[in-house]
């Protein structure tokens, strides 16, 4: 593991037990994140991206049937820790989370300032006074007026509540923040403002992000790297420049083509069908049924090929990938 690596996920598996069988929410996932970088986990709803966040932070429900693999943060293998050790040494200390719909994740009967201050009291051993002072600084950093410290969540707008949730994740100065759909319920300009706040924090404090979202356009505001998830598996990891210029996996390409653009004549396209059930995912490539470039090999599960240093889980890249990319592009244009 090189010095710059902050987080390394190896072969992470998280299955849930339900009355219908095992839901394979996170299926042998590998991911690496460097210091002061942001990786976006992109995927449709139900592809397992939120489960992955929960698996990293061990915020698991009771019906877990399988949970194994390695998660190493800062040279510490967190999977070997007990729950209590994990709580003391990792959660909030090394990494924290801004949950999905953070605006509803705040405690309605606590004042905003007190909620934000709490992790500092528990994990940094501050007394109430110091913690509130720290909360005040965090409020400033995320752009919430100071007098909001004494307000209750219902007195704040959605955007302000989201900022408060970010302040809370930030107060212990963690190296990694997991953001689960941080802007999906917000208005356009509020979204842009929050993205600005997150960028500034990243530049000023050197923190890293895992950003979980289904919104490609917004994700590009923060991304250094992009990991595309489909049906519980990561099918492509790429750096942002290459990804937004030309993604590799057929699913990524279709996803990119489905984004409506403000300008230009290109009409967006949709992906017919729906993702497979995670109860009984297909044995071959999981995207095969919706893929225009399907061929015989796709009935077997593709291994991960490395294309120009980027892992891609698709049989097209088995051999001469340049030829394949141009073929894929040509057929993409024709469709």
């Amino acid at each position, binding site marked *: 593991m090189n010095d710059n690596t902050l987080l390394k996920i190896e072969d992470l598996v998280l299955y849930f037990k339900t009355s219908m069988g095992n839901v394979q929410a996170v299926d042998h996932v590998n991911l690496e994140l460097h210091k002061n970088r*942001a990786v976006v986990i992109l995927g*449709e*709803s139900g592809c397992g991206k939120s489960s992955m966040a929960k698996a990293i932070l061990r915020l698991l429900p009771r019906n877990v049937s399988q949970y194994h693999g390695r998660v190493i943060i800062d040279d510490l293998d967190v999977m070997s820790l007990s729950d209590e050790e994990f709580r003391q040494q990792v959660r909030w200390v090394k990494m924290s989370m801004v949950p999905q719909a953070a605006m509803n994740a705040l405690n309605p009967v606590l004042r905003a300032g007190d909620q934000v201050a709490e992790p500092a009291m528990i994990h940094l051993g501050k007394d109430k006074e110091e913690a509130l002072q720290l909360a005040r600084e965090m409020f400033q950093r995320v752009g919430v007026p100071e007098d909001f410290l004494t307000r209750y969540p219902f007195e704040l*707008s*959605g*955007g*302000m509540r989201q900022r408060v949730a970010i302040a809370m994740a930030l107060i212990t100065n963690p190296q990694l923040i997991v953001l689960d759909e941080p802007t999906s319920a917000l*208005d*356009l*300009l*509020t*979204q*842009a*403002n929050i*993205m*600005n706040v997150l*960028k*500034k924090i990243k530049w000023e404090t050197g923190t890293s992000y895992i950003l979980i979202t*289904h*919104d*490609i*356009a*917004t*994700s*590009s*505001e*923060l*991304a*250094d790297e992009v990991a595309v998830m489909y049906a519980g598996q990561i099918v492509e990891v790429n750096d*942002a*420049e290459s*990804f*937004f*210029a030309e993604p590799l996996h057929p699913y990524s390409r*279709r*996803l*990119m083509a*489905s*984004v*409506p*653009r*403000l*300008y230009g004549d290109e*009409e*967006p*396209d*949709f*992906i*017919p069908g*729906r993702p497979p059930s995670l109860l009984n995912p297909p044995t071959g490539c999981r995207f095969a049924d919706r893929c225009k470039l399907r061929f015989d090999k796709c009935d077997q599960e593709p291994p991960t090929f490395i294309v120009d240093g980027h892992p891609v889980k698709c049989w097209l890249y088995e051999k001469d990938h340049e030829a394949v990319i141009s073929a894929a592009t040509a057929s993409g244009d024709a469709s």
Partner: protein
Amino acid sequence: MSTDVQMSPTATHADETPLIEVKDLHVWFELKKWGFSHVGWVRAVDNVNFKLHHGEAIAIVGESGCGKSSLMKTLLLLNRPHKGKVFFEGKDISDLKGKELKWYRSQVGYVQQDPYGALPPFMPVHRILNEPLVINGVKNKKEREERIRQAMEEVALTPVEDFLNKYPHMLSGGQQQRVVIARAMILEPKLLVADEPVSMLDASVRVEILRLMRKLQEQHNLSVMYITHDLSTVRFFSERIFVMYAGKLVEQTHIEELLNNPLHPYTKALLTGTSVPDAANAKHLKHVPPGEPPSLVNPPAGCRFHPRCEHFIEGKCNVDEPPHFEPVPGHIVNCWLYEAGRTSYPET
């Protein structure tokens, strides 16, 4: 841009009675203390005027709380106007009751934002689509079955037999939204009101639903009010666009004109705030106005955008409400910047 007929739809439709005409519409909600003593008004829609012609699609764009949903609900007669009138084919509908109201509702289809919330969870698709027909007096069972089948085929819920007996929770988000659209279309309305029809759906199916609605619009010569906060979906659908801010229409024009020559500072901010997938986005901050939309109980005096505006003119914008200016033919903007004959947004 080309100056085709679409540029000024009002001109081409000049002699025709518009399908919907909204005159001086105010939708205000009373604020009460302890349930009876009056303490003020929420001015959700303030002095809105427009015409919607047969077969025309208009988009209303704005952030939450700008009054776009209140405006829409007034068109559905779920709210009544506080002041002003709404005409449907020349007939004043502001006070419709009883049978007439039922008739009006059959002329207007409604596509809700959250399809799962909009469908009754305990009814199968067949019953969901059957009910409007029963209520509106289609007595012949055979005819009802025929129309249900036809509506489902139109929204591509095929093969029909596979879906008839399914409950909403058994369908994907895109399929649920198709059921909602089929239900809105089954009485063959003249107007379709779509409130953020794709915002709850996955990116990969959004375009599919938008295309479907466009197809229906063309086939049935439907008029559509498309309400959204996402400018990038607007151009696949509508000709004219209204931008709404804090209860007021601030800019009205043809969609291509708006994208290429936004005039109101708020519209400009919306366009700047809309991301397109590009790795360069991560390298710089976005230029967006600070603050949040104002409270509609005590909106700012003068122009309601002035506290957030970078072109704020002291003594003007915070005093007098900007009237309609038409710096470019067919392009109406309510902003003092265009008082002196300016025709494009000032460079900063």
